[in-house]
């Protein structure tokens, strides 16, 4: 019995001694490498408090290497031998202890800093990576809920740090010199490379993108940043002759006073990004639907009106036949709405097709329905208003902001959206014109998507080489059914921006899952024990729980199976104006004809002779 007890005691003493020796050795190593320990401790504390990822510490270590290089260079210049150079850090470390003994701590640290800073930061990065791994996998932490608490705390701190960072104006321009569109400060990167500033290659914005976020989540800021950033980066690429000149087309499908405010803000941003002419439709500029080629024009005019199914399809076919006759008549396509309506008269068509017997037979067959078709299109065109009746083409401005009153007059807005997308398609496909890099952004397109399904727009955009950006307030707003919604998101190869929304799961599914280690801890006697098991599980790459709780201005960028959570920086134009050529402007007349004309102002300037009408007798003082 005594023998057994003595053996147990000896084993315990041996184990305790081993532990003490191990801790003593570790403490001795930490003290010996005190400068490295100090830097590592500061780095770890910073990472914990600011929720930096290990990559942040590694970057800091990398950027402190010039300090080491300068130190080694100076050592080499001072002593000619390589041996002295190799031993210089050791010599300085040894000298530092003498200064510590003399109470000169600053000198001691200065002697070791060139090597200790990168080494300490690198050590901190490794330790911090291990700490995160240990917590996430359940290897560390006092309670079983430690991973949850750790994750929530680190998210809070990372969000706070990102909110602070986006106030730095120079760190968040609209675009970088390397052609990336700056979006904001990275909060967390899952499956993506971590960078302090989240930026997207401008080419990605030239592909399809989807933005989902409920009202008041900061969607407008995000969209404006993508528009202005894309324009600035694309313009820079054009000036380097690496891409075509950019053209931005924005469809604001909600309309109302808010749309005017957004348009004015977008104009200021785009001017600062280098856009020369920003046209706001229909308030300030008009565009001509009648510039479409005759066959396209006939199809567009036909699609502008509702045509039912079943028996109504017969009348739809008749209408299409009449439109084709009117638009493709021998004198050429109509140049205005009035000209088009004048063609929907039997007399005009008979004259036009007088030398074309097959056409004349068609006119005779359609004679009975012409008044109905005329009435229908007269009503439609009067509702659409004069803003589609020209003059003006998309090429006349660098950016177009179309305001469609989708909330107030949905059917009109739908028809306008249809016409405008047709004009965009025509502008891209017309041979012989200047090729343009085009981005078509549709804000709240769900308001008018009844006539032109979003998936069609995406498909058309892809085939035409136009990047389409679509925003909706919810998953449901992206299309009429789940099939269409999934098709839209699945083709968004430019990425998906997910903002706060109550139903983010379908979007999060697109980012896929990642493998994580899940540790189950055994409960022994009502407390968490130190036994358990681990297994590989799958977790969301883009956590829907995070998406539901996102604060205003936060967004997740889903692309290529990864997700980067970003604090979007509010887009601000550079306060420094672009270089102006001179105060003299070139003659206006030739270019005024080419650019979209303003609507006739209600009060024209008084000609020379009628000053009295304008001013009364005061002008003749």
């Amino acid at each position: 019995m005594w023998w057994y007890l003595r053996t147990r005691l000896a084993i315990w003493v041996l184990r305790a001694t081993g532990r003490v020796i191990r801790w003593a050795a570790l403490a001795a190593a930490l003290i010996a490498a005190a400068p490295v320990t100090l830097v590592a401790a500061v780095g770890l504390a910073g990472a914990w408090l600011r929720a930096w990822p290990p990559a942040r510490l590694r970057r800091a270590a990398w950027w402190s290497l010039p300090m080491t290089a300068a130190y080694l260079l100076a050592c080499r210049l001072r002593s000619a031998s390589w041996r002295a150079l190799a031993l210089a850090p050791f010599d300085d470390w040894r000298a530092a202890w003498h200064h510590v003994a003399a109470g000169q701590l600053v000198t001691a640290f200065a002697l070791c800093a060139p090597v200790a800073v990168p080494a300490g930061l690198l050590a901190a990065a490794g330790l911090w990576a291990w700490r995160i791994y240990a917590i996430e996998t359940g290897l560390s932490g006092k309670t079983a809920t430690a991973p949850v608490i750790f994750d929530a705390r680190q998210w809070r701190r990372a969000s706070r740090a990102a909110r602070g960072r986006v106030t730095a104006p120079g760190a968040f321009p609209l675009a970088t010199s390397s052609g990336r569109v700056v979006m904001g400060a990275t909060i967390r990167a899952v499956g993506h490379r971590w960078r302090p500033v989240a930026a997207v290659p401008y080419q990605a914005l030239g592909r399809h993108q989807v933005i989902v976020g409920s009202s008041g989540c900061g969607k407008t800021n995000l969209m404006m940043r993508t528009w202005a950033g894309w324009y600035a980066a694309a313009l820079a690429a054009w000036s380097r002759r690496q891409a075509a000149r950019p053209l931005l087309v924005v469809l604001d499908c909600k309309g109302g006073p808010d749309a005017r405010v957004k348009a004015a803000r977008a104009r200021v941003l785009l001017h600062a990004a280098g856009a020369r002419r920003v046209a706001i439709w229909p308030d300030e500029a008009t565009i001509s639907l009648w510039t479409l080629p005759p066959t396209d024009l006939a199809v567009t005019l036909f699609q502008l009106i509702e045509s039912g199914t079943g028996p109504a399809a017969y009348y739809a076919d008749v209408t299409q036949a009449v439109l084709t006759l009117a638009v493709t008549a021998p004198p050429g396509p109509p140049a205005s709405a009035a000209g088009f309506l004048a063609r929907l008269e039997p007399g005009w068509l008979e004259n036009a097709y007088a030398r074309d017997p097959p056409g004349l037979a068609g006119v005779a067959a359609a004679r009975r329905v012409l008044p109905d078709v005329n009435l229908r299109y007269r009503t439609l065109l009067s509702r659409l208003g004069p803003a589609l009746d020209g003059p003006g083409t998309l090429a006349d401005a660098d950016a177009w902001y179309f305001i469609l009153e989708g909330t107030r007059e949905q059917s009109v807005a739908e028809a306008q959206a249809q016409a405008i997308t047709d004009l965009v398609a025509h502008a891209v496909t017309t041979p012989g014109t200047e090729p343009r890099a085009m981005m078509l952004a549709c804000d709240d397109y769900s308001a008018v998507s009844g006539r032109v399904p979003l998936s069609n727009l995406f498909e058309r955009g892809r085939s035409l080489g136009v990047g389409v950006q679509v925003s909706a307030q919810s998953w449901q707003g992206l299309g009429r059914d789940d099939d269409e919604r999934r098709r839209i998101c699945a083709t968004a190869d430019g990425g998906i921006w997910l903002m706060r929304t109550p139903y983010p799961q379908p979007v999060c599914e697109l980012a896929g899952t990642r493998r994580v280690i899940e540790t189950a801890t055994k409960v022994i006697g009502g407390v968490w024990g130190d036994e358990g098991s681990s297994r590989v599980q799958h977790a969301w790459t883009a956590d829907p729980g995070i998406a539901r709780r996102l604060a205003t201005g936060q967004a997740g960028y889903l692309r290529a199976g990864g997700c980067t959570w970003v604090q979007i920086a509010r887009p601000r134009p550079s306060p420094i104006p672009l270089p102006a050529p001179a105060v003299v402007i070139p003659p206006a007349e030739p270019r005024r004809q080419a650019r979209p004309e303003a609507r006739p102002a209600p009060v024209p300037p008084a000609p020379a002779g009628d000053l009295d009408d304008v001013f009364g007798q005061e002008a003749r003082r």
Partner: protein
Amino acid sequence: MTSRNPFAVLGLPAQPDLADEDVRAAWRRIASATHPDRDDGGDPDRYREASNAYTTLRTPWGRSEAYADLRFPAPPAPPPRTPPGARPARPRLSPWRALLLVPARIRHGKPGRLTLRIVAAAVAALLAWHSGAGTPPIAGLLTGIATWLILTARGDLAPPPGR
């Protein structure tokens, strides 16, 4: 033929966000003083110039256009396609001009924060200089402080124009 700056003709600041009333008031003031029907014959040339300027600036769109004309150069002809292997043209902002813009970027950025940063760097550099640690460590420390200052001070500057 070249036209003068229409904002200057009407005595208005060159801003795209002027109100209709401001433009109209400016034109009325000039027109009433220069109209050819005045007893003294007025100033027909000046009146014509002001009328043209008012025609340009009377709508928000017109003001935006004129402002754009003043601020940005006319769109150049589309550049020829880059032949395979050819080097792309230089970017618009030359390094020399970028350097000249630094004072403006400081002024429009966060000068207070930048000053604090510079002061902190200067204090650290002075501490390192007077630490008596020898030339190599001091050279290393000064390089490190300069690297930190350059990397972090960029955020305190306003973005360059066009970006």
